[in-house]
């Protein structure tokens, strides 16, 4: 059965604290921190974008298992912050890892679940025999408008998952998706910052899809929350995934390891799969994992996964673990953050 044969992540090194953002906008840091449960978030360097983050994540996946890049038959990159409006990120990743000319590739968009949509796609392609290995990447360098609530959460990161049949470290037993037309969050073409439909963001969007897809996949798998060692949910803030987990009947020890947003912020397309990456860093054979993404607009992709004995043979330390990337950081203040994120604008032709 097909599954995850390797995985790799990349989180930029720079961090800003929520209290620093709150200081600038005259908000109460404690109520912000408690309200969204985010202490700090990652910030990309001015020379980083979704292409560079995707390449680093892809290379980290190839460090853990040295697959011949020529055997990767498909690369899909899911993001809502691709560097070009027209010119695929996937072409840059394919070239940077030395993939073959003959390869399926495309960029995907579905708010924060475009990366997991790619996982489902490459799994189907592996299962149907179209390709030997497929790489799905979720990466973002998302923006929140100055003083908007999203400025406390919108961060940067990426994870690459390689799917194949040969000695998977984690088998994907079941996957399914739910979709509905919901106006919770959007960004029109050419607009730098997104708009959120306040009253739609919680119940009718995040919870309905995330909890709904979780229940459906457990029903299909014939499992109950207590069958899982780990549960990972999309994490736009530190509060929503915890509430989703508790609603479904999961305990803290099941969702703790995959909950990264309180420390790195919301990495959007990378959020759930980077949580999965953190869990794969520590998981043992036989561990069962429920992993459910959410994309505004809206929909959820759910995965029922079982870790195999092959994870013991993998040198997981061959690439940086999520814990390592969370401890090796550089703190910046709001002025440097504004400079890095191009909130300070130069003249016409200078980006």
């Amino acid at each position, binding site marked *: 059965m097909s599954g995850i044969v390797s995985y790799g992540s990349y989180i930029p090194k720079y961090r800003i604290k929520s209290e620093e953002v709150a200081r600038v906008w005259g908000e109460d840091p404690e109520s912000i921190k408690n309200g969204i449960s985010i202490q700090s978030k990652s910030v990309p360097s001015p020379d*980083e974008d979704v292409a*560079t983050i995707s390449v*680093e994540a892809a290379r980290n996946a190839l460090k853990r298992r040295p697959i011949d890049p020529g055997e990767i038959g498909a690369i899909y990159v899911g993001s809502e912050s691709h560097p070009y409006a027209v010119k695929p990120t996937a072409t840059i990743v394919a070239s940077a890892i030395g993939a073959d000319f003959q390869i399926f590739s495309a960029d995907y968009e579905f708010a924060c679940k475009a990366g997991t949509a790619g996982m489902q796609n490459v799994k189907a392609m592996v299962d149907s025999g179209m390709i030997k290995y497929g790489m799905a990447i979720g990466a973002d360098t998302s923006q929140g408008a100055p003083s908007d609530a999203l400025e406390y959460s919108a961060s940067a990161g990426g994870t690459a998952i390689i799917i194949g049949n040969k000695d998977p470290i984690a088998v994907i037993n079941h996957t399914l998706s739910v979709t509905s037309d919901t106006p919770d969050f959007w960004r029109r073409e050419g607009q730098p910052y997104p708009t959120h439909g306040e009253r739609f963001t919680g119940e009718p969007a995040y919870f309905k899809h995330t909890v709904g897809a979780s229940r459906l996949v457990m029903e299909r798998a014939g499992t109950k929350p207590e069958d899982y060692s780990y549960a990972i949910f999309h994490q736009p803030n530190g509060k929503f995934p915890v509430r989703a987990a508790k609603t479904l009947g999961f305990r803290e020890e099941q969702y703790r390891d995959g909950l990264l947003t309180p420390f790195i912020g919301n990495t959007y397309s990378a959020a759930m799969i980077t949580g999965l990456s953190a869990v794969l860093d520590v998981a043992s054979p036989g561990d069962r994992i429920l992993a459910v993404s959410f994309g505004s607009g809206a929909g959820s992709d759910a995965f029922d996964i079982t870790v195999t004995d092959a994870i013991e043979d993998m040198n997981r330390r061959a690439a940086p673990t999520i814990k390592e990337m969370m401890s090796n950081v550089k703190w910046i203040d709001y002025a440097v953050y504004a400079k890095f994120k191009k909130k300070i604008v130069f003249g*016409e032709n200078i*980006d």
Partner: protein
Amino acid sequence: MGELSSIWRESSHRYRLVGHKCGNCGTVYFPPRDICIKCHRESIGKISECNLSGKGEIVSFTIVHDVPPAFARQRPYAMALIKLEEGPILTAQIVDSDMDEIEIGRKVSAVFRRIREDGKSGLIQYGYKFVLDG
């Protein structure tokens, strides 16, 4: 368009640090060379591509303070001569570091970054830079 073509032609060595190796004496070249400067004619037909590890050591560096406007967000930045494990020496920017952390002899690893962009509508060039090893 001449510049676009050369960016495109050089993308494999810029993106992936692909060098050339002389099959006669084993010398590795980066950027790639079609003829070995030690073996000259002996190397003809014996040059092959080789993937460099991206691991190296700083042999010299300078801190750039006087930067073009497009690099103002990165000022000051360090440019270093880096000797790769396989032998070649190249020039590259050191990123994600405070300037006082950069020293001759420090081990570094290649990362994939934006090198430059041609205004807001032009092509974005990607390639190698380096970070200090932890």
